[in-house]
């Protein structure tokens, strides 16, 4: 066990930090989940890519730095520490790309990865359907084989930022005679093609962060299939396990939130009672503990172990910690908590209420915490399924 960073890890951290401090926009960008904010965020993503920071763990040929997992964590710690903009490319970089690396052809990788990381081509996920959320295998969208490719028909929903994106990916039933997990294929498809209608849906926090995608006989060529025809479930599970695992929620994010909370507490110390003080301590401790847990997991990954269902513990922990931390912040703010960014008197421009609402999605998306707890009980503890 060596919990000191190595010299090269420290050097990497210094390099991240100095670039970020010099380049992060001094003005807060508008939310990346609005049309105008999305465009401004893409400018930032361009810059990040050009300096080689967009996807640090990727091979150099695709614009990465071949960073180790720990270097990636360091990058994230620095990124959140400095308060850099949220990543509107994340559904590409963190969800699709790992799947591409595992299942994609060389042609696909060389065509797709760089534009994705640079934000030149933007990606939304298209997992859920109106009646297939947590029960993903019950999806109904179909793909029909035609000359030179396939035609997609159906409806996808809860597609994050899809209203602004160029492309999306999801599962379609290619074999109508098979049920549930079988006979599905993983497709990448254009959002601005003929037959595609995208309707933005406003989220709880008021941003148009979701979209519904309607597909009516949309043509996609054969080259847009990831993995084998009819075997999309396996490919998709690789993506969702990376979604549920580390990639979305590195400890740096929560350490930064805990620091902001400590700062908020100091500013409102005169009206913060000792119980709130204790909750601030709890939030800080939880972020630390999440960090050690994650470092332990990352060590296992770095040494070649499969993490598998253990990642469900990460998901439950961070998502519920994030809600608690924001609740503590709102309790410190008191009755001004309701004021949003349009209010002259809002504390921190209403960020804590916005963050709280965002945090509330944590226990729902990427597999609800109910499902995660089922997974933990059945696959880690070995309790009977029925």
């Amino acid at each position, binding site marked *: 066990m060596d919990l000191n960073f190595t010299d090269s890890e420290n050097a990497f951290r210094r390099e991240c930090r100095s670039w970020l401090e010099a380049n992060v926009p001094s003005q807060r960008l508008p939310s990346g989940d609005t049309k105008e904010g999305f465009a401004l965020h893409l400018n930032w993503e361009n810059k990040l890519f050009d300096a080689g920071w967009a996807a640090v763990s990727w091979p150099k040929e695709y614009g990465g730095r071949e960073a180790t997992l720990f270097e990636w964590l360091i990058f994230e710690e620095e990124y959140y520490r400095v308060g850099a903009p949220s990543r509107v490319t994340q559904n590409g970089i963190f969800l699709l790309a790992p799947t591409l690396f595992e299942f994609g052809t060389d042609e696909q990788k060389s065509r797709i990865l760089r534009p994705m990381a640079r934000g030149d081509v933007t990606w939304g996920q298209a997992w*859920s359907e109106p*009646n297939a*959320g*947590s*029960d993903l295998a*019950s999806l109904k969208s179909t793909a029909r084989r035609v000359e030179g490719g396939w035609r997609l028909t159906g409806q996808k*929903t*809860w597609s994050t930022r899809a209203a602004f994106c160029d492309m999306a990916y999801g599962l379609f039933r290619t074999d109508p005679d098979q049920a549930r997990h079988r006979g599905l294929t993983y497709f990448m498809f254009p959002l601005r093609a003929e037959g595609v209608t995208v309707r933005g*849906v*406003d*989220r*709880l926090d*008021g941003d148009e962060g*979701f979209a519904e995608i309607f597909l009516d006989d949309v043509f996609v060529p054969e080259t847009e299939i990831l993995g084998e025809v009819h075997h999309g479930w396996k490919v998709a599970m690789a993506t969702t396990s990376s979604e549920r695992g580390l990639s979305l929620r590195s400890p740096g994010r929560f350490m930064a939130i805990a620091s902001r909370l400590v700062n908020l507490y100091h500013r409102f110390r005169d009206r913060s*009672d000792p*119980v*709130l003080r204790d909750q601030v301590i709890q939030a800080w401790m939880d972020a630390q503990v999440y960090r050690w847990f994650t470092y332990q997991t990352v060590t296992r990954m770095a040494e070649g172990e499969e993490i598998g269902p253990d990642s469900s513990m990460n998901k439950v922990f961070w998502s519920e910690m994030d*809600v608690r931390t924001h609740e503590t912040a*709102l*309790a410190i703010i*008191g*009755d*001004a*908590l*309701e*004021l*949003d960014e*349009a*209010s*002259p*008197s*809002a504390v921190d421009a*209403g960020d804590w*209420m916005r963050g709280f*609402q965002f945090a*509330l*999605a944590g*226990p*729902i*998306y990427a597999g*609800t*915490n*109910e499902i995660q*707890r089922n997974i933990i009980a059945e696959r880690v503890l070995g309790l009977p399924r029925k």
Partner: protein
Amino acid sequence: MRFAFTDDQKMLRDTVRDVLRRECSPEVVRDAWEGKTEGARSAWNTLAQTGLIGMTASEGAGGMSMSELDLLLPLEETGYAAMPGPIVDTAAVGIPLLEAAGTDAQRERWLGLAAAGEARIVVSFEDREMVPHAASADILIAERGGAGYCLPIDEVSVVPERSVDRTREVGKVAFEPSPSYRMREDVNTVALFALGRERAALATAAQLVGLSRRMLDMAVQYAKDREQFGKPIGAQQAIKHRLANALIEQEFARPTVYRAGWSLATGARDAEVDVSLAKIYAGQAAKFVAKQALQVHGAIGYTIECDLHMWMKRAWALAAAHGDAAHHRERVGRHVL
């Protein structure tokens, strides 16, 4: 000892419930969110016609001399409907303050209008310049430097702010504390405003109970309707226990609010402790029920196309308003320890 409402009180509740069911549907609340307040105004006016806005005014002033306790069930229904508008400020706080502390001229000018629902009152306590519904009210009653003021809203500077609950139309109020606005000086102004604070906290607690009930109803209905893995999600034990816990929180908050209403109405000893308990438990329950309802709804609840969000946001705002949990727990603590 009898812990139950009278038939009259229940009949009043039913009247309000019927009016709001007809006139304050989720669409009306949604319209108010978008600034289209005609529907909400119309519901307000119908309530006023049945005498419910002015019910705390004396009979001479066109009211029904109703107590804090009588007001609870009607207010609970306004929470259930997420009714927009300053009903707490007008009915629970403003009218009694105007009647007790208004000068003859102020009462003559405003009391009848307020009781008839034609003048909406908002109240600004000392150090609380942030006032919901300030812009759309007609009268401001304010406590400044230990004195009471009553003035038409167009003589008040209202700087608009924005609440996460758009129907709340929060504004920051300021005015010149001119003698012409002064309320009576021969009454104990400080005590009257202090009582007003208790009434505001209690009335808000009653609305929070109503908000909880509606959110739980929505979640239960959704859990019965929505199918996953071939059966309603409400058949899953995790969902059942989540909703059972929500019901427990809510149902223990209810008598706590009712007790506080009785204490305030009868001037019971330590009534303010009961009010604090009411606010704490009702706020806690509403926030808890909101969280469970959202989790049960899943992604659908996370969009503003689903009605749930309007109730949740009201609940978050009201749980913090008129004394948040920390404030009221400290008050209880001083009593107990």
